[in-house]
């Protein structure tokens, strides 16, 4: 394992790919059916986040703002803006849940959001997600935890067939669906929290909904705690599993740092076999395993001569680096926007907490970049190949259906990375 470098002698971020905590919170609430995420702060945070996710998913994004102004900021402890917002939202629509999350502004002035939330007679979950702390991943995880703590009813006794899946923020809707289906194929009844696989999966609805359309229902969140098993994918989600177990001491927990590549998927299959007592998985699972083995061999030649820069949120970073490494890709540099326990596990020659200026300064060290839209200009300037992954991807359509996980998605990721690496070598040799 590489040493994690937390340089940060830089007083600023240049070309940041770090994203904020409240945006992670918004996204988590969008994985709940008929929810209205309500961001507590100035109107711009909400507007930026709405446009950001609309462009990434090519879908309408439900979100509202408490629209704090400078005058209100001085006088109000949140009671006015939040209560007024709930009133105005519920005049027009009837959400199953209002997802109240904060930004830096109300946190700086010390609004008592929990206190205000208690006065509100409407289904509401509140979470503190100032954007001067953490990042996208922690905002999503905190929100998931808050939903469990504030909604799930305590339970005794377990339903052995019921399994709760807690996916990290960087898993795209189809990836959440594939993990659910994988587990379901072993006979489990799976509930994902949050569940983007039925909300932001890019389906044509009857009309444009003003609320999130799809996702886990509030009733299902309320009754999560009778599940026999909870599965976390991504280190960021471990706290959520603890919160769920606090509602029911009998629930057992399986943790997977990621589900990318042969070994990680094997460990999930192994756990599910052990739980079910089956001697072998469903035929489709073993077939996809054979395909991944073949994909690793087919792509190894190109990957084996390529050096990669991978830029991603920590949980996704760990998965992508492992997948590439397993088929011979040399991850020369891995960059995370924030610190995480996960970084110690990232398979790369160098792991840093940094920005895309750092990436540019080390451009000699890699040939192909795996990262978000902001890597495009870098790839162009430095003549690198680019595999677009992570938030945001404003350049391409179809993001919700990009699948890198389990045996199946592993094939697609390796093929795309190998093909990108080959074509950028060809361009250079001409």
């Amino acid at each position, binding site marked *: 394992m590489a040493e994690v470098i937390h340089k940060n002698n830089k007083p600023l971020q240049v070309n940041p790919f770090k994203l*904020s905590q409240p945006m992670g919170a918004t996204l988590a609430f969008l994985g709940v059916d008929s929810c209205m995420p309500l961001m507590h702060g100035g109107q711009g945070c909400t507007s930026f986040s709405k446009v950001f996710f609309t462009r990434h998913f090519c879908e309408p994004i439900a979100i509202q703002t408490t629209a704090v102004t400078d005058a209100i900021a001085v006088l109000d402890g949140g009671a006015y803006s939040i209560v007024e917002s709930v009133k105005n939202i519920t005049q027009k629509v009837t959400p199953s849940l209002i997802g109240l999350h904060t930004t830096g502004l109300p946190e700086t002035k010390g609004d008592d959001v929990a206190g205000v939330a208690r006065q509100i007679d409407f289904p509401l979950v509140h979470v503190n997600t100032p954007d001067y702390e953490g990042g996208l991943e922690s905002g999503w995880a905190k929100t998931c935890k808050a939903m469990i703590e504030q909604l799930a009813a305590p339970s005794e006794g377990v339903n052995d067939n019921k399994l709760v899946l807690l996916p990290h923020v960087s898993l795209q809707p189809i990836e959440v669906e594939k993990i659910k289906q994988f587990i379901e194929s072993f006979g489990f009844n799976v509930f994902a929290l949050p569940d983007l696989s039925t909300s932001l999966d890019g389906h044509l609805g009857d009309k444009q909904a003003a609320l999130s359309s799809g996702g886990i229902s509030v009733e299902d969140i309320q009754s999560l705690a009778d599940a026999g098993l909870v599965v976390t994918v991504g280190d960021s989600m471990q706290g959520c599993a603890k919160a769920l177990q606090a509602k029911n001491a009998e629930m057992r927990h399986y943790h997977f740092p990621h589900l990318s590549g042969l070994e990680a998927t094997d460990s999930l299959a192994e756990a599910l076999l052990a739980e079910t007592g089956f001697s072998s998985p469903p035929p489709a699972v073993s077939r996809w395993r054979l395909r991944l083995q073949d994909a690793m061999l087919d792509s190894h030649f190109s990957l084996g001569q390529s050096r990669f820069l991978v830029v991603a949120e920590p949980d996704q970073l760990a998965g992508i680096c492992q997948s590439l490494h397993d088929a011979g890709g040399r991850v020369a540099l891995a960059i995370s926007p924030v610190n995480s326990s996960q970084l110690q596990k990232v398979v790369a020659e160098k792991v840093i907490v940094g920005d895309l200026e750092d990436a540019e300064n080390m451009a000699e060290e890699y040939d192909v970049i795996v990262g978000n839209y902001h890597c495009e200009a870098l790839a162009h300037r430095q003549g690198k190949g680019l595999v677009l992954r992570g938030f945001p991807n404003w350049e391409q359509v179809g993001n919700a259906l990009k699948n890198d996980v389990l045996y199946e998605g592993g094939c697609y990721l390796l093929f795309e990375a190998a093909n990108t690496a080959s074509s950028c070598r060809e361009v250079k040799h001409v």
Partner: protein
Amino acid sequence: MATKPKIKDLLDESACSHNKVRKVACNAPKPGATTGGCAFEGAQISLFPYADAAHLVHGPMTCLGASWETRATGTSWRGRDLTQVGFTTDVTLNDVVFSGEEKLTKAIDYIMQHYAPQAVFVYATCVTALIGDDIDLICKQAAQKYGVPMVPVHAAGFVGSKNLGSRLGGEAVLSHLIGTREPEKTTPFDINLIGEYNVTGDMWQYTPLLEELGIRVLSTLSGDGRIADIRTAHRAKLNVIVCAKSLVSLTRKMEERYGIPSISLSFYGKRDTSKGLLAIAEAFGDADLILQTKALIAREEAALEQKLAPYKVFFQGKKAVLNTGGNKTWSIAAALQDLGIEVVATAVKKATEDDREKARQTLGDRGVLMMNPGAEQAKLIDETGADLLLAGGRSLYTAIKKGIAFADVNQEKKKSYGGYNGLLNLGEDLKNALLNPVFKNVARRAPWQK
């Protein structure tokens, strides 16, 4: 705090026609029922196009993290395009508690050492404004240290809307840049382009024509702009405001301070482009220039008409419903008419009094001005037999239900629709929309649905 503009004054702009009729606090957002960007975004829109200046956002991660590299503003600056480089102090809890001033100072040092920009704009945001970081002082000290302009921009998100933020951006330029340098030479026909941001290169559709007429663009705020040029803007003979109501305060003040008159126009569609060019010439009152401009307009219109001919044949008898806001309610309508499309209705719900008047003039007596487009547009499509709906993504479902073509007016443009030739781009895109069978095909019922 002397450089801090008075927001109340900016909201009560005497040059705004609606302020003569009624006083409405158009900046009070309703909690839980607000859309649209904040003042910081407005400042960003109006100032970020200066590609030779660094834009340092002093705030936490949402402000810049979610917004950089979102606008395709073209530049011919040969150095690194700093519009597309994100700089933020990314303030942390520690900064919130102990002040972010030291970090900001160091960030400016870092930028000067590594990027050597022509100026640094420092943007306050909600959090750093609330904790009281003194960006005026820090900018002043840094300007002395480096000898380049350091411009504090007091447009924290919570002071108001995007529009107000653009005005505040203009105020910052007026206080810190305009009039701080003399141009090497002046010409009788020097203009400033105000509020033209050169999104997708819009400006380059018409600036070559200005050049041909001998009209010199002395400076811009801020499309393809240069800091060195905007510093000399006080020597222009005319301010040309392009499609931007937010900067009328700036041009009024420039008129008071420097005696520069201003005109407001648009370069969207054939008629507006022609009218715009002529308006500039007429503002100078030079008979030769006017004649020359008229000749140029005749030449360009003839050339355009020739290229438009096949489109006009294609669009003959085609009807469109337009659902958008602001000046687009009439400017897009006029462009559609230039293409030979009949605009049967346009939404005016999100338009000012001025815009509504212009929409009425553009559409004529028969056209419908929709006050409640959400409810009205479906009915109007049926009644008028419209072939095309131009609207925001929200209305896509209406088009699919009616089985007609749809064009997203809010979609990020990839190519320019401005000037004479931009009309050809618009024509091509709309022709493709009308020819595309997708809107009918996706509406096909599944075999298991009745």
